[in-house]
């Protein structure tokens, strides 16, 4: 009878969307594409697609989301697909991105496993693979450099020292990961807490 049951305008949760959030199919396809392009790791391509190409996140938002996924257990980029998809489209979005990321390469990997079981010892194949892995390491260095730039631009000495500390402890001294993180995480959180208080004061 009463006409006042008109649907209340729903306030969208996400305040600062940079581009319109993609649909489920678009999420699935975007992650399938970055996954299939992702030779030697998907992170390079994920950052390119999410930050540069689609502008679904800013460089800093990407760093924070990735850092969170990096410190939770499990494969980072797989975690990232779930968290990122869910942030844009809820759990269904998470599942769409997760499946997009994993389904095509798992299929390819299974085919490669079958091929390897037959022709694993071909020399030419082996040499080509070695060349590709050199290039893949170069790409990894480049993505680390790009992720570093927002930090370097801010010239925040404490942050840069923390970053270098972890690099030296794990990469050069080869200390056990758990031990390094057990020290580095509380120190970094503590430092940041003190810095915020100083700014606020």
């Amino acid at each position, binding site marked *: 009878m009463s006409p006042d049951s008109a649907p209340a305008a729903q306030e969208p949760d996400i305040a600062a969307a940079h581009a319109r959030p993609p649909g489920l199919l678009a999420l699935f396809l975007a992650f399938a594409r970055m*996954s*299939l*392009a*992702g*030779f030697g790791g*998907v992170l*390079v391509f994920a950052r*390119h697609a999410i930050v540069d190409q689609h502008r679904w996140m800013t460089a800093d938002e990407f760093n*924070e*989301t*990735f*850092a*969170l996924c*990096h*410190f*939770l*257990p*499990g*494969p*980072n980029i797989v975690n990232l697909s779930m*968290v990122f998809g*869910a*942030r844009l489209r809820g759990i269904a979005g*998470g599942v769409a991105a997760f499946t997009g*990321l*994993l389904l*095509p*390469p*798992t299929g*390819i*990997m*299974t085919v*490669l496993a079958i091929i*390897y079981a037959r022709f694993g010892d071909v020399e030419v194949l082996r*040499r*080509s*693979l070695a*060349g*590709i*892995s*050199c*290039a*893949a*390491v*170069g*790409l*990894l*260095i*480049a993505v*680390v450099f*790009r992720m*570093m730039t927002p*930090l370097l631009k801010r010239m925040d000495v404490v942050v*840069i020292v923390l*970053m270098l500390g*972890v690099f030296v402890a794990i*990469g050069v001294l080869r200390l056990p990961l*758990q031990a390094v993180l057990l020290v580095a995480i509380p120190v*970094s959180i503590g430092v*940041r807490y003190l810095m915020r208080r100083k700014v606020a004061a």
Partner: protein
Amino acid sequence: MNSDNPIWALISTFGLMSLFAVGGAAAAVPEMHRVAVEMHHWMTDKQFADAYAIAQLSPGPNVLIVTLIGYAVAGIPGALAATLAMCLPTALVAYYVSRLLNRPSQSRWPGLIQAALVPLSIGLMAASALILAQSTDRTIAALLLTATVAVLASVSRINPLWLLLAGGLFGFAGIV
């Protein structure tokens, strides 16, 4: 109940391993080697090294080395079981934690913690790059190739796929 079932062994092994794999797939590789080669004798040392190379060089997340291990143990069902066991439980954990951290609240701790993790995360990645470079760049030519790709990919927007293909060509020609 049957502990000899290889599928179940894969699921329990990788499901458990993933929950302790902080720092990503690269950090879990030594543990995978210990379990697959030394403990269960699922693969030989050489098969494991090859599986690692194939996973690095194929499209998709590098964690999919578990697909290859799963296939070696139990064929296609093994490949699927290992992949899901390694990826799904932690993805769900990540989903819940991220939702918890991003719940609108007065607390500034979630933002503070996430921001504090950024420099550590980048430091870790840089360390992985160094460790990988030490294992692949055994010759001057290989080192030059890696450095060139790093510079090109940093300063230009060239599609990374071309750089990888160029690397493959250099390898094919026997230069690196």
